[in-house]
């Protein structure tokens, strides 16, 4: 057991817009040790980004309501002062956002923007070191260092994303939250980025939360996984547990695997999950997956299943409970 870095206890987040309440995150529990890599998987709208924003206490103040606790190094970030949070965000946690376009400042060159972050984290080092580090970081993300004198508008979307990643890495954070950091990138560049994150994690012991919908990335990079559906964690466990098809699984997880075309085998037809994830403003009774579930039973329509944990492998499904009893 490592040293605990992050503990999310019974987190719920509701957004209220025009009197409509969206239950974006529902009773989420998560733990992360120092240096550990957690993957959060789930389709659009599952509540992944909301959870991440909660960790940084960046949820919109007036429209988002939170319950539960998020402890970072023992401090409840949801109740921390803005001053404390600024310190945490500046020095301890970095986040790579899904949309890099909004996060770069258009009036500074990318070299200046990366350099500024490098300087903050290496106060005792000189100008030469900073310049060298900027070049290194740009090269790492596949952008020629001589382009550091250019402004963000000169770069393609993919390149801007790589620059954001470069800036986050320059912070040497304790926790890196990467929210779909490679979704818009090509696989060869994605491989470089993941390799960068991996060496950061190995060399500096950075813990990583990788939010993605790519199960391949999770298999390759993460130690453990949490699968989110309708704001809940419906299955979580060590990578060995989740990717072993002989283990019991939540039907949604089975559906996710059935939806991916296999590169290593020939599949004639995919077996998708029919239907769509429910609207968080009108979640179904009982299990939130039951309207799409091929194994739906009567109890699933009325009673929310309890999370059952066996050897740290969590599944929230009535059917899996039945199986275990049988």
């Amino acid at each position: 057991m490592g040293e605990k870095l992050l503990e999310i206890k019974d987190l719920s987040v509701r957004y209220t817009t025009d009197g409509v309440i969206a239950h974006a995150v529902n009773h989420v529990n998560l733990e992360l040790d120092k240096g550990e890599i957690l993957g959060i998987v789930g389709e659009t709208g599952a509540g992944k980004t909301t959870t991440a924003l909660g960790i940084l206490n960046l949820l919109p103040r007036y429209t988002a309501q939170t319950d539960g606790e998020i402890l970072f190094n023992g401090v409840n970030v949801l109740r921390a002062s803005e001053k404390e949070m600024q310190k945490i965000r500046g020095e301890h946690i970095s986040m790579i956002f899904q949309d890099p376009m909004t996060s770069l400042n258009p009036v500074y060159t990318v070299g200046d923007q990366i350099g500024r972050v490098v300087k903050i984290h290496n106060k005792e080092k000189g100008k030469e070191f900073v310049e060298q580090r900027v070049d290194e970081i740009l090269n790492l993300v596949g952008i020629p260092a001589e382009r550091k004198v250019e402004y963000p508008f000169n770069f393609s979307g993919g390149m801007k994303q790589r620059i954001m990643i470069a800036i986050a890495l320059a912070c040497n954070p304790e926790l890196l939250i990467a929210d779909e950091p490679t979704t818009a990138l090509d696989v060869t560049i994605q491989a470089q980025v993941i390799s960068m994150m991996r060496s950061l994690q190995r060399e500096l012991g950075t813990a990583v939360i990788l939010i993605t919908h790519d199960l391949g990335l999770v298999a390759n990079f993460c130690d453990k996984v949490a699968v989110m559906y309708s704001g809940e964690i419906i299955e979580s466990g060590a990578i060995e547990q989740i990717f072993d098809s002989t283990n019991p699984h939540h039907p949604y997880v089975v559906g996710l695997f059935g939806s991916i075309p296999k590169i290593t085998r020939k599949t004639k037809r995919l077996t998708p999950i029919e239907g769509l994830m429910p609207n968080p403003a009108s979640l179904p009774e009982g299990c939130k997956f039951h309207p799409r579930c091929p194994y739906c039973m009567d109890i699933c329509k009325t009673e929310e299943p309890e999370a059952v944990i066996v050897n740290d492998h969590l599944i929230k499904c009535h059917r899996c409970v039945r199986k275990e009893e049988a």
Partner: protein
Amino acid sequence: MSDERVLVKVEHLKKYFDTPRGKLHAVDDVSFEIRKGTTLGVVGESGCGKSTLGRAVLGMNPATEGHVRYNGKDITHQSHREFKESRRQMQMIFQDPYSSIDPKKTVSEIIAEPLKIQKIYKSRKDLDARVIELMEMVGLDLIYMNTYPHELDGGRRQRIGIARALALKPEFIVCDEPVSALDVSIQAQILNMMMDFQDELHLTYMFITHDLSVVKHISDEIMVLYLGTVVERAPSDELFEHPTHPYTKALLDAIPVPELSYHGVEPQLLKGEVTSPINPPQGCRFAKRCPYVTKACTENMQELREISPNHFVACCQFGK
């Protein structure tokens, strides 16, 4: 050209754009054929010219050089009338159909539009019946007829795009990243549907994507593009079993496979910078990133050579 099973034949196609810094070689001397009822997958990184090639094949933007033959007929430089006529047989599906449609139109108006432009139906009743038929085909609930596309999720929006493309009963569809923006569970629904339509309606696809597992799943043949040039083309299984061009190898190596045996596996990373497509230097476009580069690679343009039946590679080092 005598092969009557060939529906689309592209010969030495080039598409250059004028930019302030010089000529941008978006598509540079690309040749291939697509046989009737099959799918040619086109893969490559963003900016390598996939969309430009797709549009040039359909005559949506005129080629700089080269020829496109459709059913044996040269359609490279068509008049406006011929272009309109050809749209009955050739259609396109986009990554986000939303970007290519009028947001002020409702779902049924969007699907009806090509039918109206081509004046297919005389009566309103027949037109409506066809729109309903199309919505049912693509699995769009009729309650969405008068909905605006921005009110719908990505999966349903793509179903609109597909219904619209199918409206004129085309033979050939260029699918430009049609599932790239969708969640996997929705992506699988759309892919299954497109493959069913291919069987039922005898469609021929040019399927553009950057997702290699998707392209392997859907394609009979795969063409790998790098900065406007074809580096490798082979039947789908052959390409994945015997990737030969160093770029293809790097690409396949970089795919994260959702299996436990790939945990912690470090793919061979490509180093070096990407060559600019503006006034590119002569020789292989991949040379700057290629781990096996030699002098010969930068001196001569690489020709596609057939290294085994229907397997073509443009590399002077590999596949001899």
